[in-house]
């Protein structure tokens, strides 16, 4: 199946640009350009386009309350939310709710009213004509750690709003991929975008950005990584023990092989890739290569720091020389914000005395492994066109290496 079959090349390129929207977060995506072979058989009873077999977070929280409550504060959990005063990080107060553009005749205003939250493009056509276009914030995409972008519904079609929020500068910003100075509201959201920013949404045909709103499961919930859990819940509620030869009804990623563990993270942390199967058909424990073709980290075309953690880590000597996975350092069940605290994971294999800087800096480098060996680097994939200039945010490199340019802590 080819999602873009029959579309002219220019349409594909337009879609290409549209993907940059969701780049604010952990998992950008790219257009679905490639030929999709037949989808592999869905794992368990998670049929594509439905939520069969899923139980929902509430069912998980009953038995796994501690993990669940910690997870509520994680960036994954709030990868997508409904708009509210707390979920939208941008300011609506007068004076802070305006985004001026490089076009002297155009600005955007963000407003909070009893009817909801809105973005308005206001154009002043000389001499005195004012025209405007207003759309509602319907979905908030992004935890706000880097930034947020916002989506709106037009019927059952989903589009990106032209103004995003960028945390580093605490200001509204032209959404990535939208040209600065134009009042466009026309960037469609394709399923691959939502595959990484929601747990599930059913697609409607024929349009690529039409979805069944009622099926949407916001945030990255437990079952995104653990697979559908209805049978697991039922079994445990009925207290029926597993019989000999039976396997658990739930996926424990920690018990998967290294490759399958990496596949699970790579679904959203290896770039958009080229889909080989419909979005949301991959299930935890599956072989990602059957669903998604992932670009390699070629020496002449290294993976961007943003959202290519999988390729970057895989090219690192630490990864090749060990059995490490993403969860060697990351505990996805809880928020992890302090880069310095990750150093302790490095020191399970490395001795601090072996660092070349140890002789001059002593023990103060104990918490600096990440800052030097996984520095923040500018992304070339996320580019904001803002007020006539381009802004490229810095993202943590996941290629663990000795960087000559990094400064001492």
């Amino acid at each position: 199946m080819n999602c873009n079959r029959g579309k002219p090349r220019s349409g594909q390129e337009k879609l290409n640009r549209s993907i940059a929207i969701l780049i604010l977060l952990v998992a950008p995506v790219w257009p679905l350009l490639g030929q999709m072979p037949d989808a592999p058989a869905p794992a368990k009873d998670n049929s594509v386009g439905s939520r069969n077999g899923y139980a929902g977070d509430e069912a998980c929280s009953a038995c796994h309350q501690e993990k669940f409550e910690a997870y509520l504060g994680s960036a994954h959990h709030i990868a997508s939310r409904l708009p509210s005063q707390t979920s939208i990080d941008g300011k609506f107060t007068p004076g802070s709710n305006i985004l001026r553009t490089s076009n002297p005749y155009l600005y955007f205003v963000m407003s909070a009213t009893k009817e909801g939250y809105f973005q308005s493009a206001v154009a002043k056509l000389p001499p005195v004509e004012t025209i405007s276009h207003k759309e509602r914030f319907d979905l908030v995409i992004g935890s706000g750690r880097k930034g947020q972008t916002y989506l709106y519904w037009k019927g059952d079609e989903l589009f990106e709003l032209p103004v995003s929020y960028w945390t580093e500068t605490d200001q509204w910003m032209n959404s990535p991929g939208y040209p600065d100075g134009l009042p466009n509201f026309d960037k469609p959201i394709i399923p691959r975008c939502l595959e990484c920013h929601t747990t599930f949404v059913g697609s409607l045909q024929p349009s690529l950005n039409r979805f069944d709103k009622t099926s949407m499961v916001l945030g990255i919930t437990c079952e995104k990584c653990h697979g559908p859990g209805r049978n697991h819940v039922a079994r445990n509620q009925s207290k029926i023990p597993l019989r000999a030869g039976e396997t658990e009804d739930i996926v424990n990623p920690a018990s998967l092989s290294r490759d399958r563990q990496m596949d699970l993270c790579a679904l959203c942390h290896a770039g958009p890739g080229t889909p080989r199967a419909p979005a949301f058909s991959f299930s935890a424990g599956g072989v990602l290569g059957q669903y998604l073709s992932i670009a390699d980290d070629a020496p002449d075309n290294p993976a961007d720091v943003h959202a290519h953690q999988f390729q970057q880590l895989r090219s690192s000597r630490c990864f090749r020389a060990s059995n490490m996975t993403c969860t060697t350092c990351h505990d996805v069940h809880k928020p992890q914000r302090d880069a310095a605290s990750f150093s302790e994971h490095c020191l399970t294999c490395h001795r601090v005395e072996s660092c070349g800087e140890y002789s001059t800096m002593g023990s103060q480098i104990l918490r600096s492994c990440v800052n030097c060996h996984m520095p923040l680097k500018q992304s070339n994939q996320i580019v904001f066109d803002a007020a006539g200039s381009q802004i490229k945010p810095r993202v943590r490199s996941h290629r663990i290496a000795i960087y000559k340019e990094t400064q001492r802590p």
Partner: protein
Amino acid sequence: MIWLLAFQLSLPPQQQHYDNAKDALAKMQFGPADAEVNLALRADPNYVPALILKARLALFAHQPDIAKSCLIKAVIVDPSSESAQFFLGMFFYLQNDFSLGISPLEKARALSAKDPLPPFYLAMSKEAMGDGAGALQFYQEAEALSPEKTPQTASILVAHGRLLYSLGKFDESIAKDQLAIEADSQSRDAFYERAKGLEHQGKYQAAVADGERALTLPELGTSDSQIHFLLGNVYLRLNQPDLAAAHLAKFHAAPQTTQR
């Protein structure tokens, strides 16, 4: 419905496309508006309303060459079109070609004596050319033709007040700004200009109030950095160095631009 459909089908194609373009523009769909106006001009390359609309779209999209060629063609095709003459004059004003704008604006003024916009742009052009007396005369005319309390009236009053300020007539300038605020309570320019006048008169607290209010208004025109600069200086005079420093820091942090 059938009558409406029949009426629409009876329209010449250039007008149908022109109407579609206007509808698209009203919905802020610049791409479709441009496409429709091109279709209108394909149906009739001399269709003046479409030429003017295309020029306005081009101005919005930073394409002054296209705007200019459309407007020149429009006045050649129909020299009696007040809109064509006015928009050509306005175009020259926006491009800082003030002397070139005078003639079409004069023609527009003659063609539509009750429209305040031609004298308004004549006033601003005269002011830009250093003819203060001529500018004041046209500002008064524009004001007289625009008695309603609208943003357009506020724009005329603010520009008039700004000229009075530059001529040292601060009381009159503040009075114009006051009228502008009454005409449009969301006029950022009016609050900023009144703050400037009040600062000059030593009424710093009132100037601060107007400046802070201006910062909260979204209108285009006066930039944030202009207001921060004003507030920084006024807070210094009020012996509030922290607030002054904060505003001046924002002024310095603003992107350096030649755009006002």
